[in-house]
């Protein structure tokens, strides 16, 4: 237990209580971007093993059985009050959501839709907006998920073309008819429906493989039940339509992992009507979420200012600013290149590092950032590094890499608290 030099916020008595969250001082609503200022004069945070015993306690039970401490209960009420207002104050909602959304309330689905801008702030327009978007998705499905045979058949039925029946009487040579420009299965023409279909087949196979591998431990996604199969179908459809609508980026492995929590939350919406349209809602929210991150998935942009490498470099800078000793040890002494561990953390928004319920909590915080999840994400990653600093400082390349690629389970609320503190500290 560290006694000397431990900042009081790390040594707070809160970590021994059972209450999951604490009310920390209001963070300023307009957050400036993390400034690249010289490191603050205060010493780097002393060993964070003071709170370590708390992460040794069993992690939060994933099922929504959180004890309703008075603070928590009041917090849940405040969120509900916000939601029930006619015009939701989105800034206030963001602030509240950043502290985490209670699982039991079943409101996560609606809140995420508001945070991602899928639902407008004004309640009055919800139904209209939802209907419009869901109809649009239905059109997308009809346009993109049909194979060329069916397309040809529909075209014929609409023109009233009569097929020759096989058993209808009469013998004779069968009539040959012309085909519209180049529309035959072996066509190599660029505008041919068939050619495009076969070119897409490769991507569709990739999507199929990944969808089958999503969260194999969860019955929701994987298994022989019809529920799992229909969920997988929905994921497939969403990813295929996204790939077809975005020829620049198509499908990249990992998008299924980013989609999975969205779909899960929307499908488990207590409102049956909403749950039925989970696929359409998840599609639009996925597009919205990915719009900030597309550049991470585009290989050509890897080395550019907006690409994944520069994001990882930002993380590195952040760590250097907050914990220079750890940074030096990781990057210089043990030469653990942040790309080895941070790549997955960043591109998949930490879905692979924690269990599913924990990653939903982290996403509450990530999505509540008004400027997009990236800044918060980097701070959470930095907090993850700081929390295990003792083990990292004691380890060499192999053990550090092993630790970071299999990040140990930890108290999520503590992690988010530390991340938030980093933000506060960086503001000076």
């Amino acid at each position: 237990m560290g006694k000397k030099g431990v900042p009081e916020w790390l040594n707070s008595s809160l970590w021994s209580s059972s209450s999951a969250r604490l009310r920390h001082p209001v963070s300023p609503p307009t957050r400036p971007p993390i400034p690249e200022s010289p490191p603050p004069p205060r010493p780097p945070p002393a060993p964070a093993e003071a709170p370590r015993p708390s992460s040794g306690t069993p992690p939060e039970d994933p099922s929504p059985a959180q004890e309703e401490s008075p603070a928590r209960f009041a917090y849940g009420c405040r969120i509900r009050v916000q939601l029930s207002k006619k015009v939701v104050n989105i800034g206030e909602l963001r602030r509240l959501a950043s502290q985490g959304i209670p699982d039991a309330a079943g409101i996560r689905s609606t809140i995420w839709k508001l945070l991602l801008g899928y639902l407008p702030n004004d309640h009055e327009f919800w139904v209209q907006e939802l209907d419009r978007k869901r109809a649009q998705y239905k059109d997308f499905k009809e346009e993109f998920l049909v194979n060329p045979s069916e397309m040809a058949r529909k075209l014929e039925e609409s023109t009233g073309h009569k097929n020759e029946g096989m058993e209808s009487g009469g013998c004779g040579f069968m009539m040959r008819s012309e085909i519209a420009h180049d529309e035959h299965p072996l066509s190599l023409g660029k505008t041919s429906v068939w050619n495009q279909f076969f070119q897409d087949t490769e991507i569709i196979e990739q999507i199929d493989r990944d969808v089958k591998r999503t969260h194999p431990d969860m019955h929701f996604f994987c298994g022989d039940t019809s529920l799992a199969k229909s969920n997988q179908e929905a994921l497939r459809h969403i990813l295929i339509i996204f790939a077809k609508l975005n020829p620049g980026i198509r499908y990249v492995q990992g998008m299924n992992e980013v989609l999975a929590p969205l779909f899960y939350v929307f499908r488990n919406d207590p409102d049956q009507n909403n749950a039925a349209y989970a696929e359409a809602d998840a599609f639009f929210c996925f597009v919205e979420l990915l719009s900030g991150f597309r550049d991470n998935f585009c290989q050509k942009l890897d080395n550019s200012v907006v690409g994944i490498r520069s994001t990882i470099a930002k993380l590195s800078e952040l760590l250097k600013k907050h914990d220079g000793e750890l940074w030096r040890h990781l990057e210089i002494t043990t030469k653990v290149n942040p790309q080895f561990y941070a790549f997955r953390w960043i591109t998949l928004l930490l879905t692979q590092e924690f269990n599913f319920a924990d990653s939903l909590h982290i996403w509450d915080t990530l999505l509540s950032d008004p400027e997009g999840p990236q800044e918060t994400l980097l701070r959470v990653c930095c907090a993850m590094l700081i929390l295990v600093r003792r083990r990292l400082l004691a380890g060499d390349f192999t053990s550090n890499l092993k630790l970071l690629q299999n990040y140990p389970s930890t108290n999520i609320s503590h992690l988010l608290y530390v991340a938030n503190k980093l933000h506060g500290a960086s503001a000076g």
Partner: protein
Amino acid sequence: MVLVLAIGDLHIPHRAPDLPAKFKSMLVPGKIQHILCTGNLCIKEVHDYLKSLCPDLHIARGEYDEDARYPENKTLTIGQFKLGLCHGHQIIPWGDLDSLAMLQRQLDVDILVTGHTHQFKAYKHEAGVVINPGSATGAYSSITYDVNPSFVLMDIDGLRVVVYVYELIDGEVKVDKIDFKKTANTQSAH
């Protein structure tokens, strides 16, 4: 949506060196699910080439095939349709539609694919449909020298078949199609 290629009478190397280049550029692996080959390939290299296009290859024996193990007739079911395959030199008179109809009733298939005449034909009678894909290389036949290279691609989609006919006329590939469908599967009493 199942794509079935019907092709045959290539007579490589005896009467033709290879498939026309335009045909070869269109026949790429990954698109076709089944191949029905009427026979007279004649050598193993052609067999290997067809196998590379699609692993599910069915061949009937033609009189000049070097591999004696191909069967005389073959039947298979694809989707809702039963297809039959035979080279056709056994059916006398060659290319006679009534005799082919007899074979079709004998094999009890909806679509019979035969060759030997090197002329494309698509013929319908009470028991079903007979399709002759012609010769893919344009090799001369026992009957005539005037042969256009041709082959057939069938798109079987439920109860409906679209037959795409590919012919090489004056150096250009012409594609036509023929549509037909069958009424729902009835139990054949005979």
